[in-house]
């Protein structure tokens, strides 16, 4: 049945995002878990939570793999089954899917989905190398292509095909920095000007510093239940009514089109169909702005505008807090920050706040339907979820 809840979010937690010096990933995850427990006094975490699914991209950062068990332990949840999901920057989008499967199958009543990454203690060249591991090694990394480089290839192609401009990209950065300035948990809580964005130093031409997401430490989590029992835990659950995930070639060079992410389009179609909704129904969205061009492509792939018109949508301000369809009210990966493994469920956290009226200065009035769009790497994975106020 269309629009039937698959799972319900009864609580959510987010650590501070930023440079969290002296903390290890598991300790940051404990912060997120603590917030989720405190928000939901009717939940007895040790008794009720039956499984953990956690997104984590890389063991290189901390010489630490096996994140599932470690995170469960530090969240005080031993001895539940705990599994790490890895899909690059969509690792916790994939964790959320796995958690939905667990409750929708009836195997578990209550589960936790989350994600974590600790990045800032490593140098930028090291992080650049670790991030690149989510792209194709033999043909992309081996020839010097970086993550910003892959999205720069998409930006050049988008500009060439549709006339998208650097100024339009800068509008995305200005908007997300403004939203981030209203989010006390954002990594960068400062507004920037178009001028600042346009004159910032080049990272991978045509992308400049303010076109790039941040290297950030952080963790996020959600508590999900079977929809039938959500009201036992809270009067204000958020139902997940659509879920999509798709894959694509690891190398972007093998794709027919560099101006769109096919996996995101397929995942979006699945989620919209499951929810019985169309792009016009979405009140607020968190999309994967790992680079400003990625947000513009997301508008197009999600159907918020026609292909090629994403730049104009940003320029006209239609995706600002007061616009037709507010996007990245949290500040997005650009300003809130992008601890890669934590991002998918951190997007869901923001939508949870928006649909339960807890988004404070960033609150979108009467938000009832939300969407998250989480892209792994350069688009070889995408997960899209649609949420409805309970």
């Amino acid at each position, binding site marked *: 049945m269309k629009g039937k809840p698959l799972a319900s979010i009864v609580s959510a937690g987010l650590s501070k995002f930023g440079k969290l010096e002296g903390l290890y990933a598991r300790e940051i995850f404990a912060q997120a878990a603590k917030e989720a427990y405190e928000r939901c006094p009717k939940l007895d975490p040790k008794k009720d939570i039956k499984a953990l699914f956690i997104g984590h991209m890389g063991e290189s950062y901390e010489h630490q793999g096996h994140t599932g068990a470690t995170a469960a332990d530090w969240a005080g949840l031993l001895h539940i089954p705990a599994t790490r999901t890895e899909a690059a920057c969509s690792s916790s989008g994939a964790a959320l899917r796995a958690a939905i499967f667990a409750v929708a199958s009836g195997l578990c009543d209550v589960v936790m989905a989350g994600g974590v990454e600790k990045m800032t203690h490593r140098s930028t060249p090291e992080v650049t190398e670790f991030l690149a591991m989510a792209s194709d090694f033999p043909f992309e990394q081996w020839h010097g292509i970086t993550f910003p*480089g892959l999205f720069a290839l998409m930006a050049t192609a988008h500009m060439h095909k549709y006339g998208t401009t650097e100024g339009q990209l800068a509008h995305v950065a200005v908007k997300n920095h403004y939203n981030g300035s209203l989010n006390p948990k954002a990594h960068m809580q400062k507004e920037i000007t178009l001028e600042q964005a346009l004159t910032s130093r080049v990272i991978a031409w045509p992308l400049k510093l303010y076109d790039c997401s941040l290297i950030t430490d952080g963790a996020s989590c959600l508590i999900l239940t079977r929809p039938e029992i959500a009201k036992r835990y809270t009067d204000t659950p958020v139902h997940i009514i659509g879920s999509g995930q798709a894959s694509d070639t690891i190398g972007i060079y093998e794709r027919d089109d560099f101006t769109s992410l096919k996996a995101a389009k397929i995942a979006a179609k699945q989620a919209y169909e499951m929810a019985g909704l169309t792009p016009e129904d979405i009140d607020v969205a968190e999309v994967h702005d790992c680079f400003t061009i990625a947000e513009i492509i997301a508008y197009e792939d999600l159907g918020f505008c026609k292909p090629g018109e994403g730049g104009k949508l940003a320029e006209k301000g239609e995706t600002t807090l007061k616009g037709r369809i507010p996007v990245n009210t949290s500040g997005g990966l650009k300003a809130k920050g992008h601890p890669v493994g934590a991002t998918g469920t951190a997007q869901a956290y923001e939508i949870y706040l928006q649909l339960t009226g807890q988004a404070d200065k960033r609150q979108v009035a009467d938000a009832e339907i939300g969407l998250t769009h989480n892209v792994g790497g350069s688009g070889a994975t995408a997960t899209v979820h649609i949420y409805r106020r309970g």
Partner: protein
Amino acid sequence: MAEPQAFTIEQFYKNISQKKLMGGKCRKCGKIHLPPRPLCDKCLSTEFEWVELPQKGKLLTYTIIHVAPTQFQSMAPYAVGIIQLENGVKIPGMIRDVPLDKIKVGMRLKMEFEEPQHTQQWPQWPRYHFKPF
């Protein structure tokens, strides 16, 4: 008789070290794979033949990398792009021997093979790049 060559990435780079750009053509559906693969993603066939690919093509998109991974830091800024070879197959690579501000989408480029560098580490793949002609 020589061992038949496996349709693998390792073999692709062995061919590159002999200055040959080779793809694997599916005997069933005709798709040319770069890199070669042991299982055709289009028709699931495992029957392939080697075909030599054109070394010339046009630039579809490009970027100039300023912030590079550790290994490439000394080369930055450098250009990389995706080149469509004359038979339609696409391949990424660095673009060299041209001022960075003269690079344009659509420009014609040809492949240049580099001398293999012998190190102790995996992998020992030789590199190539593209330049105008």
